[in-house]
Structure formats: C-alpha cells, structure tokens
C-alpha cells in the first residue's frame, strides 16, 4: 500500500468521525487535534475506523505516534510491513 493510499484511508476514517473536516487543508506535520475540532470520543472513533480499515491493532500507548498525519501514515506503513 502506498503512502497516498494510506493517507486516503486515514481521510476516509476521519471524515466518518468529522464530516465537516476539510482534509485537503490538513498540514501533515502539525498535530491533527490542533487542526480539527475533535474530542477524545472522536479520537477513539477515529482509531476504531483506522483499525477496521487497515486491519491493524493500535495500542493506546502508541497514540502519541498518531498525533500528526505524517506520524499516522508512518505508523500504518510500518505496521503493514510487519
């Protein structure tokens, strides 16, 4: 899976949680929570969406690695390579 495909999958999960989010404006190196109006319940639903889409388990302890879009893509790419 390419980084673009992973990014698109992340965006799909994100727009399920925050339909109003304009994903095209997300800056990949900045914290997602600073760019989007999402709360802890949204974050959990987002992680659940990513889990379903990419079939990977994301332990809570790894959440800090998912803070930015780049971090999220790196994490999924790495998980898929294992």
């Amino acid at each position, binding site marked *: 899976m390419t980084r673009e495909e992973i990014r698109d999958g992340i965006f799909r999960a994100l727009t399920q949680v*925050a*339909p*109003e989010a304009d994903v095209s404006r997300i800056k990949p190196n900045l914290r997602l929570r600073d760019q989007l*109006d999402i*709360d*802890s*319940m949204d974050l*959990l*639903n987002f*992680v*659940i969406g990513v*889990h379903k889409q990419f079939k990977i*388990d*994301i*332990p*809570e*302890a790894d959440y800090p690695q998912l803070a930015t879009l780049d971090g999220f893509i790196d994490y999924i790419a790495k998980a898929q390579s294992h």
Partner: protein
Amino acid sequence: MAEFVMPQLGADMSAGKLLQWRKKVGDLVQRGDIVADVETDKADIEVEVFCTGTIEKILIEPGEKVPVGTVMALIREEGKPAVAEVPARPQDITAALPAPTAPVPTPRLRGTPVAPSGALEVARIHISPVAKKLAADLGIDPVSLSGTGPGGRITLEDVQRAAQSRAATPAAPAELDRATRMRQAIGAAMARSKREIPHYYLSTTIDMTQAIAWLARENLKRSVEDRLVYGVLLLKAVALALREYPELNGLFVAGKAMPKPEIHVGVAISLRGGGLVAPAVHNTDRQDLGQLMRNFRDLVQRARAGSLRSSELSDSTITVTSLGDQGVEAVFGVIYPPQVALVGFGKIGERPWASQGQISVRSVLTATLSGDHRVSDGHRGGLFIAAVDRLLQEPSQL
C-alpha cells in the same frame, strides 16, 4: 384513552414541528416504540410512546408546528374502551407562544399519563382564581408560569409579568436557520436559569493519577472497540455520588424540589457546526463501565447525527459537562432547568502535588459543582463533590 402529546424536550423548547408519523391509525404500538419524528430548534428527535395500545386518531399532520403539550394523537390502551371525544387543541402556535423562557414543568394537557417521569412530569397547578381568569383572558397557559406565591402558587402578578414579558419579546422570524434558533433556544433557557435559580459554585482539584493508570491497564485488556475514555469514569463517579446525595439528582418544579429515584445523567455534547444538546444516559449508576461506554459512545454519535430519542432529551436528572478536551481548566456551568445541579470537569494535566509532606507530579483535574440554593447548600454540595473525588480514587470499584 391515552394522549400522545408534543413532548417538552428540554427547558429551551416551547413548540415542535411534526415531521412525520411512523405509525398510522389502527397500528399497534408498544411502550418505547418510536411513533413520530419532531423538529425542534436544536435537532430532529425521534419521539417514543409511553403506553401500549392502538393508534385511534391522528390529530396533527406532518408540517404542523404546535406548542408543547398539544395532543397529537389518541391511543386506545390495551383493555380500555375507545373514547369518541377529541381533545381541543391549544392555541395555534402562530397566535403567539409564550416567550421561550417558559418553565419546563407541565406539558400534558389531560387524560391518561403517557409521558415518563422527568421534565415531562406534570405538577398540579396552584393558581389563584383571579390569576387563572386573567391567564385565560390573555391566552397564557398557566402551566408555562412559575409561581412566586406561597408554595409556588401562581399569582396575579405572575400572570401580569408573563404578559409583559410576552409583549416585550419580539416573535422570532420564521425563516431563521437552525443554528440561530438553537442559539436563541439555549440563550433563553440559560437566561431563565440565571434569572430563576440562585446558583452557588464549588470547585475542587481531584488527583486522577490512579484513575488514569487504572484506565491504561484496563484498556490493555480491551479490544479497540471496547476501550474506555476517562469521561466514562467521571460519569460513573458522579452517578454513584448522587446515590449518597440524592437531593442533587432531580428537578425543581412548581416551587418544590423533586428528587428523582432514577439517576439519568445528562451529558453535554457539542454538535458539529455549533450548539449543544444534553441527552440522558439512562440509569447511569446501574451500568458497568463497559456498558456505560457503549451507551455513551452511541449517544454521542446519535446526538451528532441528529437521531436522539425524546426520552433522552426529557429525562435527565442532572447534567455533566466536560471541556477538558478543549483545554479548559475549570467549568462553572449554568444549571439546565428544571434540574438542580450541574457538574463540570476541566482538563487533566500534570501538576506538582503535595501530599503527606512530599511533592510529586500528579495528573489532576478540576471538578466543579453548580448547585441550586433552593434545593441544596454549599455544605451538601461540598460533600457531594468530595464523594466524586473519593470514588475516582478507586476506579476499579466504579
């Protein structure tokens, strides 16, 4: 014969528009069935029925906007005879509703109870004969008034004030969008709260270190879909503390405190695009954390998708609001009438914490209580908030 009425779905609702019937004349309905969809200023709501029987008559057509309490349909209850009489409709909504500051109690017009307990519960109206006559002359529904006389009795002055207030309040333009109407509805309810409820405020700092550590361990055992958020611990702690201080769990109706036996914690949920609703998590104290999390998650999703049920908007016995995710330190909230208390939580952050002569770094949050002085005082409120703190120190017992 039971009457299915336009429900009052919160202190900020004075009327609703019927969007559609989900049942037709002759259909069997069971208690809890969704029979209609109603549009309020805040959201579209699925309205449940609170009796079992057969739809006998439909009195309101889709598209009609009617005041709270209007009989929309008649339901012949199981084992009871049919009744021919059709109840009179209250004044048409276009003939000027009371200002949106109308108090919550009261909606049913008459007949068999069909609404659940909570905000919809009808209180006997105490009103002087002269006030009653004036209210009738002016077209003011006495149930929309708060009595200031002895024992909450509605006086002539109460009716006169309502009439003045109504005259001074311009009617809302019909074409306002929902965001504006929601803002107005929230504003009206909060203004009423600040005007009528003598608030007191308390705050305390709670050490959440153990709770957060326990949560992390607990979530390791759970699948991603079953993980808990810390907000669920807060909800459960509040619900259990209310068992110890039941006067904070209830309503203030017709001049009287009405503690409720069931604990239905209302949760303030911000909506996409602005505004908020505070639907109830029914029987919050009786659910284990996993169950509570599932129901809480479902409630948040449905609130934001616009598919709440009427009972969820009418049954709350207290409200909890948390602005921790927004980085807020402390929330001093406005009580949602006719409730008598509101609990606020701020963000969890690390701070130096002195205990038993030692300083360490702990994860803490500020909890607040907004209480109604007509029902409780700072002493009991303080004990309640201390109970919330104590319960959060033993998260595995929640």
